[in-house]
């Protein structure tokens, strides 16, 4: 069975194949393939991926008590360069992957799709889904970089084809910002690979590059100066995506110009890759540099929280408002990363996932309402609660979650980050607390302007109706997710915690025993498995550096 030998790659391949099939008729002369058919197909594919992920998670994690999911898959890619398709599904990535599947599914289901090129639209979403999933799964730096860049293509195409009036400028800006960052990261990755070959050569006798995170972390740590430079390069690249405060220049233009469904996708998922990348790669690779940068990162995060909230407050445009609110909410992730304790990192990851659902949902809902009056300006809205009662109900739930009320998902992450930040950075914690207060102001203002008060200044489109059917299901599932994550966050949190272990120095180090379980370096003479806890049961044949393989491990929490 193909899924057994390559469970994670099939998750990535299915959407791509699905997208190609979706595009198939479009390449031939018959371009007017029915949009409904494409939508149905895309929903099917996305459901398949989600179900597959669910099956993998439930089969791997079907243990008792404290055991957690852990799955690695390895395929050689460019052996001479040491690059490989090394995917890992563990507690850190599982939440992100699940979120990606669900958000993609929701965006595909949401009925605000553009009217032209429907087939391409769904194909674009499926491509983007695959690329984002790839970057959440990859634990090889080269593969991560490839997916990280790949993710841009469908998104940029989407904005360029279906975007607003000023889309060209937005696309160009977005591209230039992200590319200039990721080029820096590429240089840093190349340096790391070269460095690894320098260290590994005496052992293996051949020039051997390594880009897998587990190998890299198992090597002797770099000198602090080198770490600082490389870490800065990584932080700029990944921070651009989140975005961290001075790197948010692309944010508003992109969010304003992207089409309704795509903007939800971008807002919910793209920035999270940055958060994930920092936690997966930067923290373990550059522990010393991160402890130097820590205070600055926390400061930037807190400034982002408060400043983003203030900026969101003065926006007249609903999308700009949500863009700055994202800046504000993701500031908590940044703070969590900067503080770098188990609690803060878990909080940051949780906040990132929660923000995906909340902001994704809000962009979809507000986008639909904005389509109904053909305007994004808050002043043009008003009193829509009468016409859209169901929408008003669910939007209120999402708003409340954005305001981080307890029992909604928004609270847990911010609470954990604030609690852990207080210990070392009380001042910045208070500043971000002020950001939460202002968060209530702008969210409630937006909600009021749109749904409460007297009727809208502009005419409603005649065909605008309240959500029903599939859209209703989407909104309801967002609401369910928001409450489920707020009321019972423990499963997700303990999953995250299981792959995030903070060393004595207060700086996070990836647990080498876990990440080193399957590794091309095994063949080069450095046996990384010597330090394995006895509780780990590996379900794989011994792997050489040129072999593919899958490993499932149940890891004891204490192990």
């Amino acid at each position: 069975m193909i899924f057994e030998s390559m469970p994670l790659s099939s998750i990535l391949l299915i959407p791509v194949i699905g997208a190609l099939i979706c595009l198939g008729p479009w390449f031939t002369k018959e371009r007017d393939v029915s949009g409904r058919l494409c939508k149905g197909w895309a929903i099917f594919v996305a459901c398949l991926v989600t179900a597959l992920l669910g099956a993998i998670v439930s089969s791997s994690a079907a243990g008792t008590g404290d055991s957690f999911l852990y799955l690695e898959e390895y395929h050689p890619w460019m052996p001479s360069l040491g690059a490989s398709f090394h995917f890992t599904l563990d507690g850190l990535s599982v939440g992100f992957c699940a979120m990606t599947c669900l958000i993609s599914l929701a965006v595909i289901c949401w009925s605000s799709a553009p009217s032209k090129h429907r087939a391409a639209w769904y194909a674009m979403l499926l491509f983007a889904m695959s690329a984002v999933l790839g970057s959440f799964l990859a634990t090889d730096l080269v593969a991560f970089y490839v997916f990280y860049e790949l993710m841009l293509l469908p998104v940029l195409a989407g904005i360029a084809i279906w975007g607003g009036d000023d889309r060209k400028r937005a696309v160009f800006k977005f591209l230039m910002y992200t590319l200039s960052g990721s080029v820096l990261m590429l240089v840093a990755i190349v340096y790391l690979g070269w460095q690894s070959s320098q260290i590994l050569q005496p052992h293996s006798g051949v020039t051997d590059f390594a880009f897998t995170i587990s190998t890299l972390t198992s090597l002797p740590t770099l000198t602090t100066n080198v770490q600082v430079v490389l870490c800065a390069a990584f932080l700029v690249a990944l921070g651009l995506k989140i975005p961290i405060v001075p790197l948010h220049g692309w944010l508003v233009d992109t969010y304003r110009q992207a089409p309704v469904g795509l903007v939800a996708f971008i807002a919910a998922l793209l920035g999270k890759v940055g958060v994930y990348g920092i936690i997966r790669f930067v923290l373990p690779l550059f522990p010393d540099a991160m402890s130097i940068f820590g205070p600055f990162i926390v400061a930037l995060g807190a400034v982002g929280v408060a400043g983003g909230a203030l900026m969101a407050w003065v926006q007249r445009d609903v999308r700009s408002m949500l863009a700055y609110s994202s800046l504000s909410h993701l500031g908590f992730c940044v703070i969590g990363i900067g503080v770098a304790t188990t609690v803060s990192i878990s909080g940051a990851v949780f906040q990132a996932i929660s923000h995906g659902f909340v902001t994704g949902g809000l962009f979809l809902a507000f986008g639909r309402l904005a389509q109904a009056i053909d305007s994004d300006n808050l002043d043009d809205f008003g009193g829509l609660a009468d016409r859209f009662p169901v929408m008003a109900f669910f939007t209120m739930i999402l708003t409340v979650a954005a305001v981080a009320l307890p029992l909604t998902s928004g609270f847990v992450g911010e609470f954990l980050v604030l609690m852990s930040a207080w210990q070392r950075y009380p001042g910045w914690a208070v500043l971000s607390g002020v950001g939460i207060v202002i968060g209530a102001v702008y969210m409630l203002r937006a909600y009021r302007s749109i749904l409460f008060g007297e009727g809208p200044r502009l005419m409603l489109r005649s065909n605008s109706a309240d959500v029903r059917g599939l859209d209703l299901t989407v909104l309801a599932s967002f609401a369910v997710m928001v409450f489920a994550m707020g009321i019972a966050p423990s499963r997700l949190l303990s999953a995250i915690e299981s792959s995030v272990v903070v060393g004595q120095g207060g700086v996070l180090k990836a647990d080498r025993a876990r990440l080193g379980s399957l590794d091309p370096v095994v063949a080069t003479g450095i046996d990384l498995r010597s330090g394995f806890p006895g509780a780990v049961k590996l379900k794989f044949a011994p792997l050489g550096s040129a072999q593919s393989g899958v490993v499932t491990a149940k890891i004891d929490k204490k192990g």
Partner: protein
Amino acid sequence: MVMGNVENLLLLLVSLPLFGAAVSYALGLRARVLSGPLATLTVAVCFGIAIYLTTELMVGSSIQREAIVASFGSWLSVGNVTLSFDLYFDALSAVMCLVITGIGALIHLYSIQYMASDEGVARYFGFLNLFVFSMLLLVLGKNLPVVFIGWEGVGLCSYLLIGFWYKKTEFVLAGQKAFVMNRLGDLGFIIAMAALFTTTGTLDIVELTSPESLARIGEGVALLAGLALFFAATGKSAQFPLFTWLPDAMAGPTPVSALIHAATMVTAGIYLTGRMHPVLELSPQVLSVITWTGVITAFVAATVALVQNDIKKVLAYSTVSQLGFMFIAVGCGCYSVALFHVVTHAFFKACLFLSAGSVIYGCHHEQDMRRMGGLRKSMPITAATYAVACLAIAGIAPFAGYFSKHAIIDSLAHNSNVYLAPFQGGLQIVVTLIAVMTAGYMARSFFMTFMGSYRGEATPHEVPVIMWGPVVVLAILSCIGGWLLHDTLFSFLDAVVRTPLFILQHQSLTSYVTGSLPGVLGIVLAYSLLVRVVSLTEKFQSWGWMVQKLWERKYYLDELYDVVVVNPLRITGRFLAVGVSQGLVEGFGRGVAFFVQALGELARRTTTGLVGGYALYMLLAIAVLIGILV
């Protein structure tokens, strides 16, 4: 933990209103008439459960067990942060629960008729039950985050109910203001949680207030956490300087004002300070700040109440003022006294609000007292209940308010806080003055509404029995509640917050008379000024236009906030968005782009398109290369 019946009942007590909220809300789709009775029944059952649980705590008048503890299970657990949905029912919670469910049930019952003709009645009862749920969670939470759930939950319900008629932008704005000012206070709650957790490693209230934990809290942290907690209470309980939301909150339906903005939610701050009193007591500065804030609030609100013409606004400022009284007691360390006033205040203020609601209902949604008058003829029962509640709040001897207010003045006289002692005499005079004013503005509102002759256009009528019934019950409680509960309540609460001895001393007839004097004086003054000299307003204009203006504009506090807080923040936001984000950040990006473009332009100049030119470059390059190589 072994869960017995009692524990399950405790869980039921909290979950029932949540269930009720969901069902009432859902009934809006099919049978919205049923949602009111259902919601009322839910709260009434809760009241029964609360009574049963209280009797479990107390057999006769002696405490049987200290507390009932129950848990819904774990909430979250990461690193050293472990939280679960634990409930803790002790004497303090019991008193609050009884007030919430008891008064809540009466107000629900009243609302059935009051809201009967409204389209959104199911939504209304859904929110109201959700409020009861949140409030119960607030007073039953065993750890601070669970309390915080309730704390935020009541804020949300308050927001939703103030802006219940969401078509009116100013109503929604009032709700928004309430929510945001509460949120500002919540910042204090979060800071207090963070500070306490960092020093003691726990957020469980019982553990936090244990001597071992308290010993670990240093002076600075105690001051910070105490002030932060009190700041949270300031927001929720509408104290100076965060009280301006409460008068605006009167935009909501009147029963909501009675339940949320008079009887229960606004007393959450008192509950919190009472619950966390061991932490507050670590720092006498904090206690003195609380008393000072209470006095200032009580004074400011009482003066503003004197000149209001909207019947609900008078009651709102009166509530703010009474909450100030409660905090005076809290600051003096007499938490049981504050709680006693919470209970009696719930009786008479709910009675007042519901009576006012009946008046508004009877006068067809007229709230301006200048267009009322003489209603005692058309609405005798309402007039009677309002009068009784007025006497109670004025602190006239046998009525409920007398006992609690007297205890507060006593506790101020007996306190030994080093930061308060020098001002003892002055404070007592001011508080007595406020008591006079309290009686004054309440009497004024009574005279304007019920005495004289009718000045409006509508035809006022008495309300149906389903409305006056609950009000009469509340009026009876306002009559005898204080006398009835005085000893029981204090001995009951003694297990949680020790009651100072002087409160329990039996009072003589003389003290009844002297204690009632300020109230009587206030009523007489109001009568002589208002009824004899036609209008207090005109009187004011003759001798103090400035003062009147100042009071009517509530000391220009809203304007002050706009100037000091709101506008600077907005300007900062605009500066950040336009100046920094668009200017600096994007400017940097543009600068880089411009630089690269300029370089490109320079390079472009070299490519002329003439073959000869290119050939020349080639030659030159070859020459240079040869030069280098040879």
